[in-house]
C-alpha cells in the first residue's frame, strides 16, 4: 500500500512540476476534470490525438519551409491549427512558440520562421516525452491496484 501512495505522491509532484515549468497549463487540469469512470482514458486519448495532429502539422510545416517559393499563407494556416490544438490540451510552451511563429509568418520573415520551426519541434518533443512519462506513471499506479483520480 505504501508503494502505491508513494507513486501517487510522485505523480502529483511530477504533474505540478510540469505546470510550474510551463510545459502544461490549467487547460490540462480541465482535461483531467473531464475524465471519469465512464471516460477513464479521456486524457490519454485526447493527448494521443494531439500527438498525431501535431506530427502531421510539423511535417507540413517542414515541407512548406523547404519550398523554393514559400507560401506564407499556407504556413500560417498550419501554425494556426497547431496553436489551437496545443492550447486545447494545455501544451503551453508549444502554444507560445506558435504565437511567435505566426508573427514571423505575418512579417514574411523566412529566417524567423525557420527558427520558430526548430523551436516548436523542440518544445513539442519535450512535452511529448513528459506526457508519456506522466502516462507511464499512471499506468504503474493502476497496475499496482491504485487509482489516479483527481
Amino acid at each position: 500500500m505504501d508503494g502505491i501512495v508513494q507513486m501517487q505522491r510522485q505523480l502529483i509532484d511530477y504533474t505540478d512540476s510540469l505546470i510550474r515549468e510551463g510545459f502544461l497549463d490549467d487547460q490540462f487540469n480541465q482535461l483531467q476534470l473531464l475524465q471519469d469512470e465512464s471516460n477513464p482514458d479521456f486524457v490519454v486519448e485526447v493527448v494521443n490525438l494531439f500527438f498525431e495532429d501535431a506530427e502531421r502539422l510539423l511535417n507540413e510545416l517542414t515541407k512548406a519551409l523547404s519550398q523554393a517559393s514559400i507560401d506564407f499563407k499556407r504556413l500560417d494556416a498550419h501554425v494556426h491549427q497547431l496553436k489551437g490544438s496545443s492550447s486545447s490540451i494545455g501544451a503551453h510552451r508549444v502554444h507560445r512558440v506558435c504565437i511567435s511563429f505566426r508573427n514571423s509568418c505575418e512579417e514574411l520573415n523566412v529566417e524567423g520562421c525557420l527558427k520558430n520551426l526548430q523551436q516548436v519541434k523542440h518544445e513539442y518533443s519535450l512535452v511529448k516525452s513528459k506526457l508519456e512519462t506522466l502516462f507511464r506513471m499512471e499506468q504503474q499506479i493502476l497496475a499496482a491496484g491504485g487509482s489516479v483520480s483527481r
Partner: protein
Amino acid sequence: MEAHHLTALIVEDDKVIRTVHGRMLNNIAIKNQAVENGQEAVDIHCSGQSFDLILMDRDMPIMNGIEATKKLRSMGIRSTIIGVSTRSEEIHINEYMEAGLDGYLEKPLNIEKLNSIVQKINQHSE
C-alpha cells in the same frame, strides 16, 4: 448547472478541439454533434436539423465562421450562436459579433465558460 436536455452543434475544423469541446458538452449533459466547417454547418440546417446552441469556430476552410453565421441568420436560424476563436483583438471580435453572434469566447473553452453559455441560452429562451 442544469442544461435541460439542450442540443449543440460544434463547428470546428480541428479534431483535437472537437473532441475536447464535445466531451465538455457531454459532461454537462448537452447532446452534441460536430461538423468540420461552416458549409457543413449550413448543410446540416438545410437538412432540417436544429440546435439550441452552435459553437462556431472562426477560422475554417471552405466556409469560415463569419460567413456561416451570416448565412445561418439569413436562413432564419435563431439558435444561440457563440463565436469561438483564438483572436483577442477587439477589432476582430467586433467584426465577428456583427455577423450575428450572441456571444464570443476565446479558445480553449473550459467548464466555467460553458456554464456561462448555458446561462445565456436559458436567458435567450425566456
